[in-house]
Structures are given as C-alpha cells and as structure tokens.
C-alpha cells in the first residue's frame, strides 16, 4: 500500500521540484472532473436521450451547448491556476500542542484568480481570491503532533472555479517548515540540579519559585503574560511586567542528564524552566547531551535553548 504514494512522490519530485517559490505551469497542473461534473455528464446523457426520443432539435442543441460548456470549462478551470506563483513565507516557532502557523504568499502576474484553495487535505483548505497583478497572503494553521521540525509536506493548491464540474490542482513543495518546541510542563527541578553543593540558597529559590520582587520594567517580547502588571496598564503607564530577580548565587544550569523520567517529560520540564527563567531575566545555562549552552540571558539565548530542546535526538538540524 505504501508503494503507490512512494512512486507518486518520486514522480512529483521530478515534475515539481521543491523550492521556496513555485510557479504553476502546464507541467504542474492536473485536472479531472469532480463528482458534480460526473453528475453533470449523467444529466447531459439523460438530456440527449430525451432529444433522441422526442427528435427535438432544440433539445439536441442544448445538450451540445452544455457539453461544449463542459469542454470550455476545462480550459477555464485550468487557466484559473496557470501562472499563479506561490511563495513560502516564514513560520513562527510554537510549542507542542499549539497550532503551527505557516505563511504562504500567492502572487498573480496577470489576471484575477478566483476561488483558489490552498492547504493540506487533512487540515482543510483555505479559499482565497488573488487580485489581478497582486498578491495575497495566507496563514495556514496546522496542529502540532510532535516536537522538532514540522514539515507538512506538499501543499495542495486547487480550484474548481468557474463551474465546479472540474477540479484543477497541483502539489507544490515550498519547503515549508515550522519549529515545534516541546510542550512546557511545570514542575520542580531536583534540588541538586547542576548547582554546586555550597550554594544551596539559590537552589531553594529556583525550586520553590519564591522570588524577590524587584520592581517593574517595560514588557518585551518573550515575557510571560502572567507577569503583566495590569493595574499599571490601566493607569496608562503602558505594558509593564513585574520583575523578579533570583537570589544571588551562581547561574543555574539546566541539565538534561540530572533529570529523571522519560525523554519527552524531561524535555518538557526543561522547556518550562527555559521559558520561566527567561521571563525572569535570569541567566541560565543548558546542558543537553553533548551540547552545553553557556549561561546567558535574552530572547536569542532563550530561542537557542528551546531550539536545542526541540531538536534533541533528531537528525536534520535545519531545513533549507
């Protein structure tokens, strides 16, 4: 059963090579009658029978006219994809369980393309009109099922416009990918995690989460929404977050090997702490397998750590 899709994939690879932008042309568009089209043909057959049996020339003429409309509709349906260009947009990294959102841009170099639908069959297609000589941007969301790179594979572009009796489609590979971080799971870090024995103070603070409230600072991307100071916001002071500072001591080291449990739950726990510590502006280090990320702070550091967690144990490091 797996052989057929494999052959199809290989054939598609040759015919529609992957790339960040793909223009649909005659080699890349396929066309077939839809179920509605088949019933249209059956209706035409019945009309032809009526024309024959009643020897009615007008009934013949109407049957032939609608048959010709069917043929003309092949050209129109096909044309409604021909020349359309699809470009990959970026995708933001998400945590496992959230909807991944991948952007695709559709560009028309000439005419208007009506009712083009784009998406993956299992998650539903989105219907858009691409204006003449213009672009339109689509956000395609997908459920995330496991961490790492989410590569949804070939994108289906189809159109039944104008009559719905034919469907023209193409499978394009825009090499879309979204990074999926592990699902953050709150929990306690073990007492001794990567900290020197003598600095017990810091570890207690980390484990319990009781921190010194230090004041307010402006909100910046990556800060937890739970720390927003709504009262200040309502007073018109802008978005402020409550800032906490960990107790003095060495920067904590989040060490994968020190944790118990299966791989995924360990990653989830680390993920939670990466997010948590980053939101507190507290420097931390991460050690996972052979990689050690030195203690640092900031969005970049946070993302690097999360990426390392997401890709732990996975072969391919980065998509094209």
């Amino acid at each position, binding site marked *: 059963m797996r052989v057929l899709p494999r052959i199809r994939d290989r054939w598609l690879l040759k015919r529609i090579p992957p790339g960040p932008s793909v223009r649909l042309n005659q080699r890349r568009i396929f066309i077939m009658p839809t179920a509605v089209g088949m019933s*249209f043909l059956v209706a035409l057959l019945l009309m032809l029978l009526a024309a024959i049996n009643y*020897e009615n020339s007008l009934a*013949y003429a109407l*049957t032939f006219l609608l048959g*010709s409309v069917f043929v003309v509709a092949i050209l129109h349906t096909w044309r409604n994809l021909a020349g359309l260009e699809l470009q990959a947009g970026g995708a933001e990294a998400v945590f496992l369980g959230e909807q991944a959102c991948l952007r695709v841009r559709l560009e028309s170099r000439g005419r208007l393309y*009506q*009712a083009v639908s784009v998406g993956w069959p299992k998650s539903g297609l989105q219907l858009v009109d691409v204006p003449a000589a213009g672009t339109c941007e689509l956000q395609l969301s997908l459920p995330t099922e496991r961490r790492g790179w989410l590569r949804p594979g*070939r994108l289906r572009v189809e159109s039944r416009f104008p009559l719905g009796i034919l469907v023209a489609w193409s499978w394009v590979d825009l090499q879309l990918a979204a990074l999926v971080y592990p699902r953050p799971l709150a929990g306690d870090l073990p007492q001794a995690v990567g900290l020197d024995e003598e600095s017990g103070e810091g570890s207690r603070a980390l484990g319990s989460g009781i921190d010194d409230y230090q004041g307010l600072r402006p909100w910046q991307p990556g800060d937890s929404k739970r720390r927003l100071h709504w009262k200040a916001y309502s007073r018109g002071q802008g978005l402020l977050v409550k800032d906490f500072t960990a107790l003095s001591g060495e920067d904590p080291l989040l060490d994968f090997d020190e944790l118990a449990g299966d791989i995924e739950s360990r990653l989830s726990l680390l993920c939670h702490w990466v997010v948590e510590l980053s939101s507190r502006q507290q420097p931390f280090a991460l050690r996972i397998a052979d990689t050690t990320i030195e203690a640092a702070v900031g969005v970049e550091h946070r993302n690097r750590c999360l990426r390392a967690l997401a890709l732990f144990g996975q072969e391919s490091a980065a998509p094209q």
Partner: protein
Amino acid sequence: MSSLQPIPRNGLVWLLVAQVLVILPHLAHLPLWIIGLWLGCAIWRVQIFRMRAPYPRSWIKALMMLGAAFGVYFSRGGLIGLDAGVVLLIAAFILKLVEMRSRRDALVLVFLGFFAVVTSYLFNDGLLAGIYSLAPIIALLAAMIGLQQSPAGTHPWPTLRLAGSLLLQAIPLMLVLFVLFPRLGPLWSLPQPKDRGVTGLADSMSPGDMAELSRSSALAFRASFEGPIPDRDQLYWRAVTFERFDGRRWSQSFKSQLPQTPEWSPRGAPVAYSIVMQPSGRPWLYGLDVAQVDAGDVRLMSDFHLARPRPVDKPLLYQATSWPEALREPNAGPAVLGRALELPATGNLRSRAWAAELRRAHQTPKATVQALLSHFNQQPYSYTLRPSPVGEDIVDGFLFDTLNGFCIHYAGAMTFVLRASGIPARVVAGYQGGEVNPSGNYLSVRQLDAHAWVEYWEAGSGWVSVDPTFQVAPERIERGLEEALDAEQDLIEGAIMDLRRYRDIGWLNDLRFGWDSLNYGWQRWVLNYQGERQLEVLQGLFGKVDSRKLGLLMVATGALLVVLLALLLLKPWRREQDAQLRQFQGFERLLARHGVARQAGEGARDFAQRAAVWLPGAAAQIQAFAGLYEQARYAGQPTDLAEMKAALRSLRRQLPWRATVSKPRGGIDGDNL
C-alpha cells in the same frame, strides 16, 4: 471546499433569477396554483437567507410534496404521462428551493433547471422560444459560477458576464456537434405533450366545422417550390377524401384508409416542392395531385391521399413530387365505385328528383357536371361564411331555398346530386391557395385556406377534379378567402392581433413577411435537422458520408476549435518574451538535467561556478555561456543573441547525450517529502 458548504449570496441571487426565467415559458401549460407555490417558496427562501425564517421541518416538506402531487393529480388527471411529468418536474424544481441548504442541493436545483428548459422545448420549439431559452441557461450557469465563488466581495454582474462568455465560447463547438452528431430514431416511444393547440381538418366534417376552420388564421403548412410557384387556381392541396354521407356529415371511409396504392400513370410535367407542415394531430400529409413522397413510411392511400402510420405531432418536413395531369384510376374496381355512389336511403327528395332529371337530359358524366356547374354559375347562389339555416334535408334546403353557403355546401351538394344521378363522386378536403411570401419565395397556407371540392369518376379519364365554389366565387380561388369575404373580415379569429390585418401598411407587412420567412428557415434548417435531412445536408457539404467519416470530422473540427480557443484564452506566446531570459532558462534546464539545479536566489555566476565544479568536463563551456549572459544582462553591452545560442549549443554538445539524473547537489533530502 466540500460541496456541503452554505450557498453564497451571489449563487442564490442567480438561482432565483434563473428559476423565474425557466418557469416563464412553462406558464402556458402549467396549472395556476404553480405560480402561487413559486411565489410562496421564493419568499420563504429569501426570508431564510435573511435569517428571518427557519428551514422547513421534514414533515412540512413531506406535506408540501404530497400537496404538489395531489395538485398535479387533480389538475392533470393522473401522475403518469408527459404533461403531468412536466408539472411534477416544475413543482420539484420549486420545492427544492426551500429545501436546499448546501451547495450540493443548489447544484441539484441547477440540473433540474436544465431539464425544465429541455421539457419546455417539447411544448414550443419556435425561433423565439429557442432564442429566449438562452436567458435561463445563462442565468443557470451564472448560478453555478456564483456557487463556486468565495463568499466575500463578489457582485452579480461579473458573474453574469463570465457565464455569458462561457456560453459564447461554447457555441462554435456546439454548432459542430449539432451539424455532425448522428441523429438516431427514437429508442423507445414516449408520450407527447397533449396541449399543443391543434386546429385543422378532421376525419369528418359538417358545414359548421369548415366555417369554424375558416376563422382561424393559424398556419397549416408552408411549401417551397423548386421551380416557379404554380398559379393559385392550380394549388389544390389534398388532405383527405370524404366518401360517406349520413345525411348531415361527410366523413372518411375506413376503406379509403387502406394503404393500397391506386393505379395511376404520370402525365405532363412534374412539380417538385417541399413542405413543412405544422403539427395536425392527424396521420395525413398534404400534397398536390398526384403526389409522391420519398420519406420512408409515407404511403399513397387508395383514395390518393398521403398518410403515414403515426400522427404528425411535431413540425414535419418532406419532399414531394406531383404530376397534376396524371391519369387516375381509369379502370377503377367496383368496390371503389360502389363507395363513391353510396347515399342515405332517405331524405333530400327534391335533389334526387333533380338528379334524375339531369341524368335523362345528359348523355355523359362530363355533360352532367357541366350542367351542374353552370347551374351554380347562373342561378343567384352566393358565397358566405354565415349561411342561412336550413332544415332537416340540408342538401335540398341549400340547393333550392337558401342558395348561400361556402365550399363544403357546394361540394357536398354537388357530390350528392352526382351520386344520385349515378356518377361516382366524392368530396375532397384540403387547402386551396396560400399566401406567397416575397422575401422567401414560398407559400404559407393557413387554416382559413381550408377548402372542399369534388372529384367524379368517368370511364377512361378516371377521377377528375372540379370546384363548384369557383363558379360562385371565383375570387375565393383566385385571391383567397379574405378577399372573397371583405365584408365578413371580423369573422376571422384573432384578426386584430394578427399582423395580416394591417397588411396595407407597407413596412409592417414587410416585417411580417420577414419574420415569417425567418421562422420558416428555422423550421427547415433547425427543427427538421433530423435523420434524412441531416444526411442530405451533409452529403451536399462533404460528398458521400459514412459514420466513420462523420466521427473523424467531428473529432477533428472539435479538436481544432478547442485548440483555437485554448490559444485565445491562455495566450502562450505571452509566457516569456525576453529572449535572453529564454536562453538562460534553456541553460538552466540543461544543467538541471545533468543534476545541477539552480537554487532559489542563486545568481548566474554562482550557479555557473557550482555547475563547473560538478561537471568539470564542461566547465569551460559553462563559464563561457554564463559570461555572455552576464555581459548581455548586467553590463549593458549590446545583446548578441546568436553568440549566446552558439555557446549554449557547444555546451550541449560537450555534455553526455543521455543524462543520468543523479541527486541534485545542494538539494533536498527526499525523505522529508
């Protein structure tokens, strides 16, 4: 994109418009309650769309369907048959409007609409009806398009324009199919619509019926002659003969309907013509004496009338050849002559006495006939559509008391007297004359041209036709009924609406003739484009045709048209007009075949360098081409296309002839796909 999606506004608008347009031509033969049903359903539907009314519950739907079925049963007397079927179809078409929720339901409605248009052709397939039906078809197509459009921001007019252009683009292919698609005979017999208004001659006739007919200006048939149109007084179109007389009515004899070809020999010059007759609901065809028709199932019957097994229930075109001077049955058998001498046992004593007198006075049948004709000519007989009432003996009353009447009175009375004096005679019913259409050189014969005349039999000369009406009102024969009845114009039914009334106004008359001629062309070329007619036309166009040749021709012309349309729509010549870029694309394709695909965003130089490493054997040629391209493209140097072409050629020669596609370098790992 499933078809279960809700119906977009645009689709619904056009669906409603299409429904009105589809139902309109059906109104002529639909019961009135259908209109009420439609109004109710349309309002309900709009309210559903505005979210002011719910969809009907299933028991209401069932109730409405049952109600419609009952309505059809009571107004049509049953649920079977074409007429009831059409009402049911329209009722379903209307009820589906309220019931439809999804796009799929709406498509069912559209298909029902197409069927309803086809059924409307069974009731009326005239030129106007044909042109009109383009309107519902465009609206139905617009509805189909509207159903596919994305719900936001679409307007009804562009949708309509697209539907119209689809239809226009389909017309050439439709014409090819219409001309070349082989026509078959009916595969099985189907009920025909009943209420096609048929007026015309009947199997039997009393004077009153004929007067009724003379008031109708409905068309009976049109005839075009290959040669010049014969004079009016030659145009006696025979339909049927009346051989039996019961004292009041003249009727057809069953024996005369036997398909025995009577004995006759052609004489004189033949007249060739073709006729398109309107549906008459009778099996007989019209022709000048003596006619031969070369359509398969048409026969000359024993009394010289033409008939076919089935009634003529749709316009019929046939070719005929007549020999007006033919000698007919010079040696008729006793059975035929016996039928032509039968009279009721009693009644009309004065006429019988006069017949006996005539027989004594004249030696030959011819002389008797002459005497009768001059009697009508010399006595004060008059021609009128309002004859005075006569008593029990209608022949006596007319001949001796009232002295006025029209063709059937004269023909009937003359036949009666001839029979009474021992001369075999019968009444011939048909049409006389016709109106010449100057714009088409053909004749239109109407119901008011219905006429009756006499033929009598004489040994040696066979059957001879005479027209007693001519003796009384020669203008009836020479110029037509309306001229003859100037004073009784108002008797002609619908004369006010009829443009014929205004024939003194020159341009209006021209308009009428032009329109009539258009209709006639429509009937001859479109409606009758069936079976033998098609074969005849095709043979005229392409010489000898067989089904294989036709099929090939159809596929070839169809394909040609589709290719032309594809070129027109897709404009492939616009794809890449930049010659340099075209060369570079050729370069790209060539290298891609050898395993080096240009990556997105990779410039010409980088690409060439990478390719040169990958294909060291052709490195020089690759660099040469890339250099030329860069120069032409970016250094603003004058383009030398030929040089680029030559460079590409030498590269092609350098590379192995059959490329083995290996995994593209710097490409993608296929496992991810």
